[in-house]
């Protein structure tokens, strides 16, 4: 590609990049706009009532240094 061709292409690239940025944010907003299933609030309620935090699975307890 010659320099002239690159210069001619640059505004199009900038526009396209801005368009891509908007589309990615809209994709996020599309998901964020969906109602949150009740199961998550219910789960956190159960976890909260069961405080202190439930014991980790045996596998995790034997390897405490390996987070998660």
């Amino acid at each position: 590609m010659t320099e002239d061709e690159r210069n001619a292409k640059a505004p199009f690239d900038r526009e396209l990049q801005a368009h891509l940025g908007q589309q990615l944010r809209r994709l996020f907003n599309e998901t964020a706009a969906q109602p949150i299933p009740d199961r998550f609030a219910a789960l956190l309620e159960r976890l909260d009532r069961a405080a202190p935090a439930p014991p980790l699975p045996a596998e995790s307890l034997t390897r405490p240094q390996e987070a998660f």
Partner: protein
Amino acid sequence: MSETQPDPGFKSALLAEISQLRFFALSLSGQHDRADDLVQETLIKAWAAQHRFTPGSSLRAWLFTIMRNTFYSDYRKSRREAPDRDGESAARLFVNPEQNGHLDLDDLKAALAKLPEDQRVAVLLVGASGVSYEEAAQICGCALGTIKSRVNRARQKLMQHLAIESVAEFGGEFLAIGASDSAPGEAA
């Protein structure tokens, strides 16, 4: 025992991150049913590990790290055990069977599905979820430069794809040129 009591604010802090968690789960798994299971598992692990969270650091980045580790340790394993048809799950990326999304995002979704997984996750973290490059590197367990290069490569490919789609709206000439690139007999 007071230090073992859960922080009363932790539950509401987790609730406030659920939309973000669902989106990142989709970025990883590409499927809504799997994504919500992944969110649930992440919440359970985060609750159990809350004493390891450093107050003042990014809860979102911490949760995303747990989610990503969970996905790669558990979900990828089961995916290998039950492989689906080539590209079938990628084709369903972000497509919720119960709700129709914006039609004009279909091109983006199709382009995202074609990206290598590490590039897709990187560009969605930075471009859609809005986490910093530094946090994305932490979440993905790689160097800052690696994340930047993944995001750049993903962005270039997505822009190419979107450029082709926008040209296609104006006419078929570019598509004809594109078609001549493929080897004779390659097209089915």
